[in-house]
């Protein structure tokens, strides 16, 4: 029975629902992400303490019942800080990838569909950005624009935009050569409409998968930037800056380091699971395996 389901192509419109529900990996990833998103959104309701409240009596206090993740070098509640840090880290990860998606996907579509000099004019500068090491580029951009969460989100978006543009361009090349695109032209459909309603829906799948996986990496980049002091600025907690705080007290109070680290690992893993689940649906080769 399950074989028959796999063979029959699903109706295109329910692809999101099926993409999420059809594989266990996708379900797990989706479930964790929804949970984390809820944590980020409802942080003030969930957090047991003020994340920035300094308590001199609890400096590096180990985990106990009222402070399950312990306290850091300033006596702040690590659990509350992790919860608030999700706001920053998820916000930057999702926001930067969305920004990259919104800019990169139209560029890739346009370049792939029109080809020729349009393609060259769009893709060569993009290739140049792609040639630079991501982290170096981010640090350089922040050196110019100044540190902060918004700036690091923009820096990550600039790094990711070329990747998504490339992915969309290559899937667009395949789609644009299909007969149904030629048929749409033969019906007198305008280029703009062909791109929007025929090329985009058929070519965007791989970019969505890629964007999901990139969100996980974006979280890591944000953490790295904050770790280096270039992202979220104190006292705003970010998973990366918490790692930096924890490093100094690693031997005395490992909980300050471990909990944000585990939080990063779980989130990246969830993004990857979710991406894999989507890939199963959107990429035909994924279905076969």
């Amino acid at each position, binding site marked *: 029975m399950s074989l028959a389901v796999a063979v029959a*192509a699903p*109706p*295109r*419109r329910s692809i999101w629902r099926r993409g999420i529900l059809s594989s266990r990996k996708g379900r797990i990833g989706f479930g964790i992400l929804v949970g984390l998103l809820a944590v980020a959104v409802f942080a003030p309701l969930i957090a047991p303490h003020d994340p920035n409240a300094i308590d001199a009596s609890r400096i590096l206090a180990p985990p106990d019942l009222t402070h399950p993740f312990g306290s850091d070098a300033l006596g702040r509640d690590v659990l509350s800080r992790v919860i608030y840090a999700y706001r920053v880290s998820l916000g930057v990860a999702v926001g930067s990838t969305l920004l990259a998606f919104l800019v990169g996907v139209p560029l890739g579509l346009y370049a792939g569909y029109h080809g*020729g000099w349009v393609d060259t004019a769009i893709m060569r500068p993009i290739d140049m950005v792609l040639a630079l090491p991501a982290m170096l580029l981010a640090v350089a951009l922040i050196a110019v624009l100044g540190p902060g969460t918004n700036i690091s989100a923009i820096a990550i978006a600039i790094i990711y935009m070329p990747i998504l543009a490339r992915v969309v361009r290559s899937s667009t090349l395949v789609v644009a050569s*299909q*007969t*149904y*695109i*030629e*048929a*749409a*032209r*033969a*019906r*007198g*459909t*305008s280029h703009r*409409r062909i791109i929007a*309603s*025929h090329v985009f*829906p*058929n070519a965007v799948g791989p970019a969505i998968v890629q964007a999901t996986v990139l969100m996980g990496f974006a979280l890591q980049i944000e953490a790295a930037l904050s770790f280096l002091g270039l992202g979220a600025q104190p006292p705003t907690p970010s998973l990366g800056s918490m790692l930096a705080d924890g490093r100094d007290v690693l031997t005395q109070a490992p909980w300050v380091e471990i909990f944000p680290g585990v939080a990063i690992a779980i989130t990246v893993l969830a993004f990857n699971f979710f991406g894999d689940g989507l890939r199963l649906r959107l990429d035909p080769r994924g279905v076969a395996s």
Partner: protein
Amino acid sequence: MSAPAPLLALEHVHVGFATDEGVVSAVSDVSLAVNAGEIFGLVGESGCGKTTLAMAAMGLLPHSASVHGAVRFEGRDLVGLPEEDLRRLRGDRISMVFQDPMTSLDPAFPIGDQVAETIRAHRDVDKQQARARALELLAGVGIPEPERRYGDAPHRLSGGMRQRVVIATALANEPALLLADEPTTALDVTIQSQVLDLLRDLRARLRTTIVLITHDLGVIAQICDRVGVMYAGQLVEVAPVADIFRAPRHPYTQALLAALPSQQQEPGTLRVIPGRVPNLVTPPPGCRFAGRCPSVMDVCTTVPPLAHETDAHLIACWLSEATKRAGAPAGAAAGGAA
């Protein structure tokens, strides 16, 4: 002579494709007139330029193609027309049906919307009106329960049903000219005859002129009024369909018909035309069939002009008196040099 101006007139059309090996001469000096209301068959083997000719008429050739000559549609030359003007013609006055209905419908787009899109590209109607008209069209091409089918993705329809949708799309704005490029090749024989019946019925109902491109002589015999035979980019013979089958004049047409398997034939043997299609990057000067022609002569290195042997029967072969009369020997040097 005093007949009304043809709906579609090709005048000395040449199409070349730039490739790494050189320019492929896909269509060479084709002149052809298609009259309003007729079903004109264009027959020839794969790669002989039939589809290229149709794409040239639609203005849909890729940038690598260069088109010379004139494609007159309703008196207007379409070659070199601005893209926006061509876009307005496509799907409105001229439509096209593609070979494979499995690939010519967008898999991510409900079938009804593909029909409605064609209407909205050319008519100032709102979504509801376009939908109502699309439903009418789907019913008109024999889709059962169009209301229920409207929102279906193409993969939920059989091949024959999909080709009906493609035809409904092509007819959405009641075009004057329908270019049908191998509309039945991808379909099995039963469905094939249904689609041909549908085309014939449409011609009767809407007076649509149809140019049917095919390599299948059986299809030509079933539905066409007149036939043009193409070989390696040249138009070699044009005649009413009965004449082509009864009295083919060009050696290629004769060979093509002789190659049709018949019941008298020894089982397991197929007659073939010896030799192979010339390389179109460096085509032979003159008649491109000369290399395979049983009656090849010295004069065949000069391009034979397409000439009226009778009022309705045109042929481009030096065996024909008409061609000899039309081809002034003085023009002989011109063809080879290019």
